[in-house]
């Protein structure tokens, strides 16, 4: 388990680093997928099967593919040119962001109110319990999220429609 954890962590970190340093945009996305895979592996390691499946399904199957699609639609896909410089001269901004996020995460993990609520030992992540949590304990945020996403969807349709109408 230890070995698996380190291997997966290495994959995740390497994927993340490659994703922001590669020259070719498509390579970046492929590295990003590697990163997603590493995260999925971690979920599996934590016996969070459902999260693993959702991670693969949503992040690799949908998000990464969507990014690829966007790149293919916009970039010179058969060429090799990509961003020449990562972050430009503002590397300190990136570093600052990283430090802040790391600090936040550390603080949350240290003093998470959720962690106290959970029963001791391995957190159960079976489908049934996730389902129950979503539609019983966290119903309002869940529904709010649903409404938000629906609104985004409708917005996208409206924008696309506008384009279609203008084209005509």
């Amino acid at each position, binding site marked *: 388990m230890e070995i698996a954890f380190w291997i997966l962590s290495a994959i995740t970190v390497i994927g993340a680093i490659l994703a922001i340093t590669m020259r070719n945009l498509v390579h970046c996305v492929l590295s990003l997928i590697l990163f997603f895979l590493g995260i999925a592996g971690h979920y599996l390691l934590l016996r969070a099967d459902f999260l693993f499946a959702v991670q693969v399904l949503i992040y690799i*199957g949908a998000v990464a*593919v969507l990014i690829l699609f966007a790149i293919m639609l916009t970039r010179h896909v058969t060429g090799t040119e990509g961003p020449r410089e990562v972050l430009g001269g503002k590397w300190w901004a990136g570093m600052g962001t990283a430090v802040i996020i790391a600090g936040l995460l550390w603080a949350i993990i240290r003093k998470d109110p959720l962690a106290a609520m959970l029963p001791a030992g391995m957190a159960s992540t079976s489908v049934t319990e996730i389902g129950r949590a979503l539609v019983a304990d966290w119903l309002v945020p869940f529904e709010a999220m649903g409404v938000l996403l629906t609104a985004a969807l409708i917005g996208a349709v409206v924008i696309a429609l506008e384009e279609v109408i203008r084209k005509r």
Partner: protein
Amino acid sequence: MDQVYKVAPQLLKFLSYLLGWLPWIGKPVAGFLSNPPAWFLLAVAIAIPILFVVSVFPGIFAYTTLVERKALGRIQNRIGPNRVGRWGLLQPIADGVKLLTKEDIVPRSADKFVHFLAPVIAVIPSVLLFSVVPVGAGLVPVDLNIGILFAFAISTASVLALFMGGWASRNKFSLLGAMRAVAQVVSYEVPMVLAAVAVVMAAGSLSTLAIAKAQGGGILNVTHWFVFRPWGFVGFILFTIGAMAESARTPFDIPEAESEIIAGYHTEYSGFKFALFQLGEYLASIAMAGITVTMFLGGYNGPGSGPGILGGLISMFWFFAKLGGMIVLTIWIRGTWPRVRVDQLMSFAWKVLLPMSIVNIVAVGMWHYIAIRPIAWVVTTLWLVLWFITLSKLAASENIEKREYRYAS
């Protein structure tokens, strides 16, 4: 896996009995095997399903290609391969040898690394898919409690290989094929998952084994198959269409449409890389057929199937028989229908399949809440038929018209 865990010691005992006859190493090995340590038992228990998946399904793949070529040949009034071995039985081996010995060509301007990686990635998800397909009563390589979801997640990943292959080849046809593949897989995922939701609702579990188990019982272990429910029948058709689109089988083989974009994403692949693409594609197709069988056609259930050695063997027979039936169905369709166009494919997925699968979910709900079976039958059937007629009329009115022809006087 639990079953394998139980069987493994017996198997090892048998092995040790066999190996005991060997000189020198026979005795110590036999001793080790007859009383194995726990870690070894675990390793064996893990290895057996892996070996099973890696040996049986590629074998099925090899002979699927042969059966496909033979059956297509017969459909087209030809004989099909019959030169290598009796009835061409060694043809897959000859094909393999041929593909292995062919020159591996990589286009000069290709993205070498991605070009190399794509066929490898094409195979991995396809093999992983089999890990949740129950091949017999209680016999599933890994009984994940999210089996179905896992299958969908993994099969989506296969699109990456297609994209990588198409993009890395630096060929416009390949790129078109890759774009088509991505668009197709992403849009067919949705109705397929929704069709599966109906089954999950009825079975009350995401585990493939539980779904298969839920279809047991009834007369001859047959009548409880989901396909013999109104919603199950519709779900079966929706899921089969989705699975065929997902694994790019005719009439949805537009990512590799040879008459339009030559071979799509694998235009620039030759030799063994091409073979790997084919392997991945066929394995995915077979695995999807296996999942279809599990979800709708009763899985391993059939007359005589059940627990125990004999019941297990019979259940395996039923599973593979149904799998063969599904494979034959795809071949038959391949020999008959023309290919749909890429935009029609999309509009079919979004305008027919998606509404129909949502309607189907509602039908399962009705089925669940109407306690009296005959009424449930009538209501769900009516509901589904009405929607089917409406949707097909809508779809047909867009694309199809009836023509009359006149003659010059």
